[in-house]
Protein backbone atom coordinates (compact mmCIF):
# COMPACT_ATOMS: atom_id res chain seq x y z
CA UNK A 1 0.00 0.00 0.00
CA UNK A 2 1.35 3.42 -0.96
CA UNK A 3 1.94 6.08 1.68
CA UNK A 4 -0.76 8.42 0.38
CA UNK A 5 -3.28 5.59 0.28
CA UNK A 6 -2.31 4.73 3.86
CA UNK A 7 -2.75 8.40 4.77
CA UNK A 8 -6.24 8.40 3.22
CA UNK A 9 -7.17 5.31 5.22
CA UNK A 10 -6.02 7.09 8.39
CA UNK A 11 -8.31 10.03 7.53
CA UNK A 12 -11.26 7.73 6.80
CA UNK A 13 -10.89 5.69 9.99
CA UNK A 14 -10.22 8.68 12.26
CA UNK A 15 -13.20 10.55 10.77
CA UNK A 16 -15.50 7.56 11.21
CA UNK A 17 -14.35 6.90 14.78
CA UNK A 18 -14.52 10.57 15.82
CA UNK A 19 -17.87 11.31 14.19
CA UNK A 20 -19.54 8.05 15.24
CA UNK A 21 -18.40 8.77 18.80
CA UNK A 22 -19.67 12.33 18.61
CA UNK A 23 -23.02 11.26 17.10
CA UNK A 24 -23.51 8.76 19.91
CA UNK A 25 -22.51 11.26 22.61
CA UNK A 26 -24.68 14.02 21.13
CA UNK A 27 -27.66 11.70 20.85
CA UNK A 28 -27.29 10.58 24.49
CA UNK A 29 -26.37 13.83 26.27
CA UNK A 30 -26.89 16.82 24.01
CA UNK A 31 -30.31 17.86 25.32
CA UNK A 32 -29.11 18.12 28.91
CA UNK A 33 -26.06 20.26 28.16
CA UNK A 34 -25.63 24.02 28.11
CA UNK A 35 -24.28 25.90 25.06
CA UNK A 36 -20.66 25.96 26.27
CA UNK A 37 -20.70 22.25 27.13
CA UNK A 38 -22.19 21.49 23.71
CA UNK A 39 -19.38 23.37 22.00
CA UNK A 40 -16.90 21.54 24.23
CA UNK A 41 -18.43 18.21 23.23
CA UNK A 42 -18.10 19.16 19.56
CA UNK A 43 -14.49 20.24 20.09
CA UNK A 44 -13.46 16.73 21.26
CA UNK A 45 -13.88 14.87 17.91
CA UNK A 46 -12.62 17.86 15.92
CA UNK A 47 -9.46 18.01 18.05
CA UNK A 48 -9.00 14.26 17.71
CA UNK A 49 -9.27 14.49 13.91
CA UNK A 50 -6.93 17.48 13.88
CA UNK A 51 -4.25 15.65 15.85
CA UNK A 52 -4.55 12.48 13.72
CA UNK A 53 -4.43 14.50 10.48
CA UNK A 54 -1.39 16.44 11.69
CA UNK A 55 0.34 13.17 12.65
CA UNK A 56 -0.38 11.62 9.26
CA UNK A 57 0.82 14.76 7.49
CA UNK A 58 4.05 14.87 9.54
CA UNK A 59 4.69 11.19 8.85
CA UNK A 60 4.60 11.57 5.05
CA UNK A 61 5.51 15.23 4.51
CA UNK A 62 8.96 14.44 3.02
CA UNK A 63 7.54 12.59 0.02
CA UNK A 64 6.95 14.95 -2.90
CA UNK A 65 3.87 14.07 -4.97
CA UNK A 66 4.37 13.12 -8.62
CA UNK A 67 1.92 13.61 -11.50
CA UNK A 68 -0.08 10.47 -10.65
CA UNK A 69 -0.48 11.55 -7.01
CA UNK A 70 -1.62 15.00 -8.16
CA UNK A 71 -4.06 13.53 -10.71
CA UNK A 72 -5.65 11.29 -8.07
CA UNK A 73 -5.85 14.16 -5.56
CA UNK A 74 -7.29 16.53 -8.16
CA UNK A 75 -10.04 14.09 -9.17
CA UNK A 76 -10.94 13.37 -5.54
CA UNK A 77 -11.00 17.08 -4.68
CA UNK A 78 -13.23 18.01 -7.61
CA UNK A 79 -15.86 15.40 -6.67
CA UNK A 80 -15.65 16.15 -2.93
CA UNK A 81 -16.06 19.88 -3.67
CA UNK A 82 -19.35 19.09 -5.42
CA UNK A 83 -20.53 17.06 -2.43
CA UNK A 84 -19.55 19.87 -0.05
CA UNK A 85 -21.28 22.52 -2.15
CA UNK A 86 -24.47 20.45 -2.43
CA UNK A 87 -24.44 19.89 1.32
CA UNK A 88 -23.89 23.54 2.14
CA UNK A 89 -26.50 24.73 -0.36
CA UNK A 90 -28.99 22.44 1.37
CA UNK A 91 -27.92 23.50 4.86
CA UNK A 92 -27.62 27.19 4.05
CA UNK A 93 -30.56 27.73 1.72
CA UNK A 94 -33.23 25.20 2.65
CA UNK A 95 -32.80 24.06 6.25
CA UNK A 96 -33.04 27.55 7.80
CA UNK A 97 -36.72 27.64 6.77
CA UNK A 98 -37.56 24.51 8.74
CA UNK A 99 -34.87 24.08 11.39
CA UNK A 100 -32.44 26.11 13.42
CA UNK A 101 -29.68 26.09 16.04
CA UNK A 102 -27.75 22.91 16.57
CA UNK A 103 -29.63 21.07 13.83
CA UNK A 104 -27.99 23.41 11.33
CA UNK A 105 -24.57 22.99 12.98
CA UNK A 106 -24.84 19.21 12.86
CA UNK A 107 -26.10 19.23 9.29
CA UNK A 108 -23.19 21.42 8.19
CA UNK A 109 -20.81 19.12 10.04
CA UNK A 110 -22.37 16.11 8.32
CA UNK A 111 -21.80 17.78 4.92
CA UNK A 112 -18.13 18.38 5.76
CA UNK A 113 -17.65 14.84 7.04
CA UNK A 114 -19.36 13.36 3.99
CA UNK A 115 -17.19 15.45 1.65
CA UNK A 116 -14.06 14.40 3.53
CA UNK A 117 -15.06 10.73 3.36
CA UNK A 118 -15.79 11.02 -0.36
CA UNK A 119 -12.41 12.69 -0.90
CA UNK A 120 -10.42 10.10 1.05
CA UNK A 121 -12.47 7.26 -0.46
CA UNK A 122 -11.72 8.46 -3.99
CA UNK A 123 -8.01 8.79 -3.15
CA UNK A 124 -8.00 5.16 -1.97
CA UNK A 125 -9.94 4.09 -5.08
CA UNK A 126 -7.54 6.02 -7.32
CA UNK A 127 -4.49 4.25 -5.89
CA UNK A 128 -6.21 0.86 -5.93
CA UNK A 129 -7.25 1.23 -9.57
CA UNK A 130 -3.84 2.37 -10.75
CA UNK A 131 -1.76 0.06 -8.57
CA UNK A 132 0.51 -2.33 -10.47
Amino acid at each position, binding site marked *: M*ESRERQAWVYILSTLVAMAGYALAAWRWHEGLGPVARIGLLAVPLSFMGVVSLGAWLMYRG*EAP*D*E*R*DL*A*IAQRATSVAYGVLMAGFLYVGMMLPFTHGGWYLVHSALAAIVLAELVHSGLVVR*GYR*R*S*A*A
Partner: protein
Amino acid sequence: MNDDSARLTNQIRTLRFLAGEMTQAELGQRVGLTRQTIAAIEAGKYAPSLSCAFRMAEVFGKRLDEVFQWTPN
Protein backbone atom coordinates in the same frame (compact mmCIF):
# COMPACT_ATOMS: atom_id res chain seq x y z
CA MET B 1 -6.63 5.50 -14.45
CA ASN B 2 -8.37 6.55 -17.63
CA ASP B 3 -9.82 4.98 -20.77
CA ASP B 4 -6.65 5.55 -22.78
CA SER B 5 -4.49 3.52 -20.41
CA ALA B 6 -6.20 0.29 -21.57
CA ARG B 7 -5.09 0.93 -25.15
CA LEU B 8 -1.66 2.21 -24.29
CA THR B 9 1.09 -0.38 -24.23
CA ASN B 10 4.76 0.13 -23.56
CA GLN B 11 8.18 -1.50 -23.73
CA ILE B 12 9.50 -0.08 -20.47
CA ARG B 13 10.20 -3.43 -18.85
CA THR B 14 12.26 -4.57 -21.87
CA LEU B 15 14.05 -1.25 -22.14
CA ARG B 16 14.91 -1.30 -18.45
CA PHE B 17 16.38 -4.78 -18.93
CA LEU B 18 18.40 -3.61 -21.92
CA ALA B 19 19.63 -0.64 -19.90
CA GLY B 20 21.46 -2.95 -17.52
CA GLU B 21 18.47 -3.98 -15.39
CA MET B 22 17.71 -0.40 -14.47
CA THR B 23 15.38 -0.46 -11.47
CA GLN B 24 11.94 1.14 -11.42
CA ALA B 25 13.15 3.41 -8.62
CA GLU B 26 16.14 4.56 -10.68
CA LEU B 27 13.99 5.26 -13.73
CA GLY B 28 11.49 7.05 -11.53
CA GLN B 29 14.22 9.22 -10.06
CA ARG B 30 15.46 10.17 -13.51
CA VAL B 31 12.06 11.19 -14.84
CA GLY B 32 10.61 12.62 -11.61
CA LEU B 33 8.14 9.88 -10.72
CA THR B 34 7.81 7.49 -7.81
CA ARG B 35 8.66 3.78 -8.13
CA GLN B 36 4.96 2.97 -7.70
CA THR B 37 3.99 5.21 -10.60
CA ILE B 38 6.60 3.59 -12.85
CA ALA B 39 5.18 0.19 -11.84
CA ALA B 40 1.66 1.41 -12.64
CA ILE B 41 2.77 2.71 -16.07
CA GLU B 42 4.56 -0.56 -16.86
CA ALA B 43 1.45 -2.53 -15.94
CA GLY B 44 -0.70 -0.30 -18.16
CA LYS B 45 -2.72 0.96 -15.19
CA TYR B 46 -1.72 4.60 -15.59
CA ALA B 47 -1.15 6.67 -18.71
CA PRO B 48 1.69 9.16 -18.12
CA SER B 49 1.65 12.75 -19.27
CA LEU B 50 3.19 13.53 -22.63
CA SER B 51 6.18 15.33 -21.12
CA CYS B 52 6.84 12.41 -18.81
CA ALA B 53 6.62 9.96 -21.71
CA PHE B 54 9.17 12.04 -23.63
CA ARG B 55 11.48 12.11 -20.61
CA MET B 56 11.33 8.31 -20.38
CA ALA B 57 12.11 7.94 -24.07
CA GLU B 58 15.07 10.28 -23.60
CA VAL B 59 16.40 8.22 -20.68
CA PHE B 60 16.38 5.09 -22.87
CA GLY B 61 17.70 6.97 -25.92
CA LYS B 62 14.66 5.93 -27.96
CA ARG B 63 11.91 7.65 -29.91
CA LEU B 64 8.57 8.04 -28.15
CA ASP B 65 6.87 5.46 -30.39
CA GLU B 66 9.54 2.90 -29.54
CA VAL B 67 8.63 3.18 -25.88
CA PHE B 68 4.85 3.68 -26.03
CA GLN B 69 2.35 2.28 -28.49
CA TRP B 70 -1.26 3.35 -28.77
CA THR B 71 -3.88 1.20 -30.47
CA PRO B 72 -7.16 2.87 -31.44
CA ASN B 73 -10.36 0.89 -30.72
